[in-house]
């Protein structure tokens, strides 16, 4: 059969790319309080159908998780069509393709000599997961992209637009602000987030995104064909794919396919590598001879090229086994950080760090902006795991959105009664700074805000001598420890400047140990 020239394939593919990018952004924007208690649909869909995350989480938890059922769909899709995900669906790939249009000259650039480390990264991730260390969050493209959007891109876009409209509102003449305000309100209802949010060390997340996008200058889809472990997994599955290219080898007279191929799926001899090929169909469309086609063939072996040497395979496997071991002697296990508060419903610390894929969903959804990325408080392996910083935001009593969006159950889904009793930590007063104790000034703002029905903060009414030497009656607060759930609203609202006079600490921090044998 003569291959039919597919005029429309590029357009169809772009429509698909844009669709999935918009879906990703739509779900991103709706990872927010929906105006009711529960989020009505799966905003974490992209993480649920991610087979890399599914594999690494299920390996570390050593259980089968139903939430990753959609990942089977992607696996089947890959087995049938090959690595189509990367060129047709991946939002990061789409963004890289869009970004690449602004860089002149990359179309004609050949492959760099940078080795293809995808398989090493993949094996390292999987092996570490098997041995008890979760690294997938650092290398998974969705985690990187979602975190980057949450921490940097979205807040930055918001603050620039809000700043612009605020300036017009406050300083421009009325006829201008009269025009700009309706635009602003319309934007607020559609694309802008509800509030300005702030995150710790946003520059770090920015740098990661910046590097990935900058590598596009070196080569097209550098991240995808050289580093991405999800791409490696798709490549492995692609070996069995039914959709195969013909001819299998480049024509001797023309090497246009190889120069234009974004995935670098031709070896130096000109063989087409079915596992690297993402079925973008660009070569089909642009072949001057109209010779290329993709067809379903069941019992024909395709040329594949797993670019990992035995040496690299062994070394990455070893590394994957050793890294978790090294992590066990980290001092964090002997003395956990006393102020490292985890979200309500978080699993015990070691399981929590295992299951967390650092996707940033919980930090995006947190209605008070309380959840922040952990930096080095629990060692480098705990980077980007969520923690609550009460001075930035507290845990809202009637909110349990973080558990609803967590794709791995690191933060468990709670119902409202469970949420009301979920203990994050316990609050402690610093009487050297607390106004009624230290300055004989009335306050008890903490008591007023305590959301526990019968109040976890009580007070004694005492007579004290104030600064002027007069005896006054004053209410001195104290914590009723067994009622405190550590929501942190007291610490958040404490009116003294700097560090609060009441602080939430980890409650009976459990030392967690790694069972070596």
């Amino acid at each position, binding site marked *: 059969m003569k291959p039919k020239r597919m005029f429309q394939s590029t357009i169809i593919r772009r429509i698909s790319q844009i669709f999935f990018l918009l879906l990703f952004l739509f779900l991103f924007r709706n990872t927010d*309080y929906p*105006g*009711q208690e529960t989020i009505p649909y799966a905003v974490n869909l992209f993480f649920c159908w991610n087979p890399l995350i599914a594999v690494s989480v299920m390996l570390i938890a050593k259980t089968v998780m139903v939430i990753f059922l959609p990942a089977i769909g992607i696996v089947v899709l890959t087995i049938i069509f090959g690595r189509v995900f990367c060129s047709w669906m991946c939002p990061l790939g789409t963004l890289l393709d869009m970004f690449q249009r602004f860089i002149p000259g990359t179309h004609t650039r050949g492959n760099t000599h940078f080795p293809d480390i995808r398989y090493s990264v993949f094996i390292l991730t999987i092996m570490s997961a098997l041995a008890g260390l979760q690294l997938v969050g650092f290398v998974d493209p969705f985690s990187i992209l979602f975190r980057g959007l949450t921490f940097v891109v979205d807040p930055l876009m918001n603050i620039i637009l809000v700043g612009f409209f*605020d300036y017009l*509102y*406050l300083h421009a003449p009325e006829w201008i602000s009269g025009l700009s305000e309706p635009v602003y309100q319309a934007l607020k209802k559609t694309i802008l987030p*509800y509030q300005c949010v702030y995150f710790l060390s946003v520059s770090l997340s920015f740098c990661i995104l910046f590097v990935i996008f900058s590598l596009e200058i070196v080569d097209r889809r550098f991240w995808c064909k050289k580093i991405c472990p999800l791409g490696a997994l798709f490549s492995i599955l692609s070996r069995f794919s039914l959709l195969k290219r013909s001819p299998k080898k480049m024509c001797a007279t023309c090497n246009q396919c190889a120069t234009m191929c974004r995935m670098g799926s031709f070896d130096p001899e000109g063989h087409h590598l079915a596992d690297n090929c993402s079925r973008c169909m660009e070569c089909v469309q642009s072949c001057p001879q109209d010779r290329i086609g993709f067809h379903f063939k069941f019992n024909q072996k395709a040329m594949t090229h797993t670019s990992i040497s035995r040496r690299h395979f062994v070394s990455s496997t070893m590394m994957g086994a050793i890294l978790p071991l090294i992590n066990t002697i980290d001092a964090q296990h002997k003395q956990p950080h006393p102020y490292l508060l985890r979200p309500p419903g978080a699993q015990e610390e070691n399981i929590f760090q295992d299951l967390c894929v650092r996707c940033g969903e919980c930090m995006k959804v947190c*209605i*008070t902006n309380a959840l922040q990325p952990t930096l080095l408080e629990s060692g480098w392996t705990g980077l980007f795991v969520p923690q609550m910083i009460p001075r930035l935001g507290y845990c*809202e*009593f*009637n*909110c349990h959105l973080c558990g609803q969006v967590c794709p791995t159950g690191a933060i468990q889904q709670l119902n409202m009664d469970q949420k009301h009793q979920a203990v994050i930590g316990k609050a402690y007063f610093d009487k050297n700074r607390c*106004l009624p104790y230290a300055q004989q*000034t*009335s*306050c*008890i*703002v903490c*008591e*007023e*805000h*305590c*959301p*526990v*029905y*019968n*109040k976890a903060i009580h*007070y004694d009414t005492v007579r004290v001598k104030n600064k002027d030497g007069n005896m006054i009656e004053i*209410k001195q607060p104290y914590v009723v420890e067994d009622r405190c759930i550590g929501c942190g609203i007291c610490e958040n*609202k*404490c*009116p003294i400047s700097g560090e609060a006079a009441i602080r939430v600490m980890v409650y009976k921090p459990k030392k967690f140990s790694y069972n070596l044998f």
Partner: protein
Amino acid sequence: MDRREFLKQFTLYSTGSIMMAPIFNIIPSVMAKNDQPQLIVGVHPNYALLVQKTLAPLGGMSAFVKKGDRVVVKPNIGWDRTPEQSANTHPQIVKTLVELALNAGASKVQVFDRTCNVDRLCYTNSGIKQAVESINDKRAVCEFIDDRKFIPVTIQKGKALKEWPFYKDALAADCYINVPVAKHHRLAGLTLGLKNVMGVIGGERGKIHTNMGQYLADMSTVLKPNLTVIDATRILLQNGPQGGNLNDVKILHTLIATTDPVAADAYATTLFGKKPEDIDSTKAAYTMGLGEMNLDKMIISRV
């Protein structure tokens, strides 16, 4: 000073004064009242009827809202609690007041409060947002606080507080209706009408707590409600101002309406078995001549 230095300093000073935040001088029209304040206490289990019944002796809503007026109905939406838990004003009371103001010809009725919990949760779970939206009138809006609208105000009659940011829309309203809920509050004793001003001020409200009674009285010299309606349909007896436990709630089906903010608070105090002078803010406001505190000097009519 040479010419160069003069020009430099002149530029700096004028830039400084231009860049400075605008300060609004609002001279309160606080006059010692000779006539006794009229206070209406209504009791009825149907809250829509209750509002109409209680306002009727004062001349109904049309005595306060003229055609084309911009009206602010300021309930307490401070907490992420349901109407039964009694931490916020009852949504039906708010809704009826808004409807009455609309019927009286208001050009716009705004409902807002600066919340203590997250605003979106408070507005939704208090039921007030849905109640106002259910009127389905474009003139009635239940909107979130816009931080840009807080403007610094000099409190000329203030004894302890000289300046504080207030919400522009509250100051600019033709008719400001204060609709607090009566409930327990450990520091203030009770939170009533005067305390409800906390929802239209900016700044760090925690600082108000250091001398709450006097600060509240000072602030009420700036913002004097045209009408105070205290919601005592159900009152929170303890664990206020948030409550949560339904056992702390007592159902009274009662509404208090008056033009005198101090008298409203003074009477509401008696519902809790306390005396008006037990509440610092009531006492401070009375001392400053902002209203009547003695129950026997009010004309109290029950309907």
